[in-house]
């Protein structure tokens, strides 16, 4: 391995030290909705997220009541929103509903 390759590798490894932020991902959240809730709620992820505005989702998330807000959007998913499984994936679901909220202005690709 050449010295410049070693430097590049060392630089990348060094970056791991700065890896600080949790990596929630709206695309992952969308997949998790599809997997756990689409059939129960009977609506697509896009329709679910667009039930509320970004500020509404934000407020509920910060208040620790996102599961209740999601239950309002999908009453049939109440059991899931109160489960331990939900707690594990809440950040991904939040990222998804936030990014595709009614007033997000997000433009889907196709």
């Amino acid at each position, binding site marked *: *391995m*050449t010295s*410049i*390759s070693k430097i*590049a*590798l060392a*630089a*990348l490894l060094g*970056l*791991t030290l*700065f*890896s*600080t*932020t*949790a*990596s*929630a*991902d709206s*695309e*992952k959240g*969308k*997949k*998790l*909705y*599809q*997997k*756990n809730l*689409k*059939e129960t709620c009977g609506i697509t992820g896009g329709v679910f997220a667009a039930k509320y505005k970004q500020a509404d989702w934000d407020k509920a998330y910060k208040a620790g009541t996102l599961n209740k807000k999601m239950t309002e959007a999908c009453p049939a998913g109440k059991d899931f929103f109160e489960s331990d*499984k939900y707690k594990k994936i809440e950040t991904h679901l939040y990222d998804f509903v936030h990014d595709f909220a009614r007033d997000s*202005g997000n*433009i*889907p*690709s*196709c």
Partner: protein
Amino acid sequence: MKKITLSLIAASLFSGNLLADEAALQAQIQKLIQRIEQLEQAQGTTQQTQIVLQENQAEIKETQISQGDMLSKVNAQSANDNIKWDIDLRSAFHNINYQYADDAKNRDGSADATHSGQKYSNNSLFTNRLWLGMGSKVNDDLFFNGQVAADYYWGADTSVNHSAMSQDMGWEANSKPHDASLGLRQAYFVYKFGNDWDIPMTFSVGRRAAVDGFLANNREGTQKPGSPLAHITNVEVDGAMMQFNLDKVFLPGSYLKVVYGRSYDTINQNALSTVPYTGTTFPGDDKVDFLVLPMSIYNDGASNLMAEYAMIMNAKGDTVSGTTYGGVAAGTAHYAALSYQLDGLNEDVDFLNDSTVFASVAMTSTNPDSGYTMLGSTDNKTGYSFWAGVLFPDTISDGGRIGIEYNHGSKYWTPMTWAEDSIIGSKVATRGDAYETYWNLPIVGKNLTAQLRYTYINYNYRSSISFMDDPSFKNLDHSQELRAFVRYQY
């Protein structure tokens, strides 16, 4: 005397009563005075409160007027500004090596004495790739997506005549007058209709995103794949697309896309011609059209099964005599693939829940017209390929994942993966075995990411994804690339 005494007693009693009444009266007067003072103070406070309220009201009114003026300015400025932008900038380091076979052959089958056994490498190739994404949305059913792009190596020199030091030199390319080129990677609008029908549809025309499709997104560190199957399709295409959403009548997440477009056209662009934009620049170098049918068979968010059939008309080959070698419409090429990915292997174990496995099988087939050859043969030839991979958490970072992939391709395996993001050539198109491992690392969430990737390709047949080449004439023995990048997306 007795009368006088009684009078005095009566008078003193009367005066005593008078004094007591006066004191009580004085106390009442004092209370009244205090009450009046209190009322006066209260009245003063009320007046002060009223003054403060009036001042506040005036301030609010001024603020409202100011905000109204600002809104008017914003409205005037953005009323016709209907594009939203996003940025994807990637800076990468590449270390690449090619090793020619000891008995390397030229394209015509003759011995390549110049390159046989030789090794070629570049220990420090740096590249920048910028994607400026555009989005415009009229409503939920009508929107546009676009992307302008620049992808170049540091110090790039595209000048034809190096000694002339033209304005193409990398260090001044965009600071000096030049040509009007701007790289367009994607530009298409989407129109959705029939949302209440059993089979809602979508129509789209433009320059489509057919790169980094299903499965290739893993090695690029991208969560969302493009819709084509990267096992047989990785190209930039211009065409029209009709999508049929089968979710309501078939399986969850299912859809079928029908894409028709043109990938190659050498019409005569000569401005001095009397009939420009007609004919072809070279005889026989006909237009190349394609039909692609990507289909999502099942997608429940964890299991994703996709299939694709594609056909290229007027695919380039050679004449039997070989006289027009270099590109002539020689026949038809067919492609098919079936790919599966499972996200989350076991919900009860975090490590497995964040892991992914995938596998894909594919085939390509050439069907040369009479008098022409494709892949060095006048006969139909079929190639096969297998692609598998696994991704799992790195366990030392939050969200970092390591991937390991393996590809195998047979002698006549020739997919259309010309735009695959590999400096040393498409690894998916390997006629032989390709091994790859990568580490995708989030640094600041999804906004700043990094990747370290190593690819090794061992060739059993010719390294080429051209129908004009005969796979029997092996050129390279193996090639490899080490890549590291940091990527900003927002």
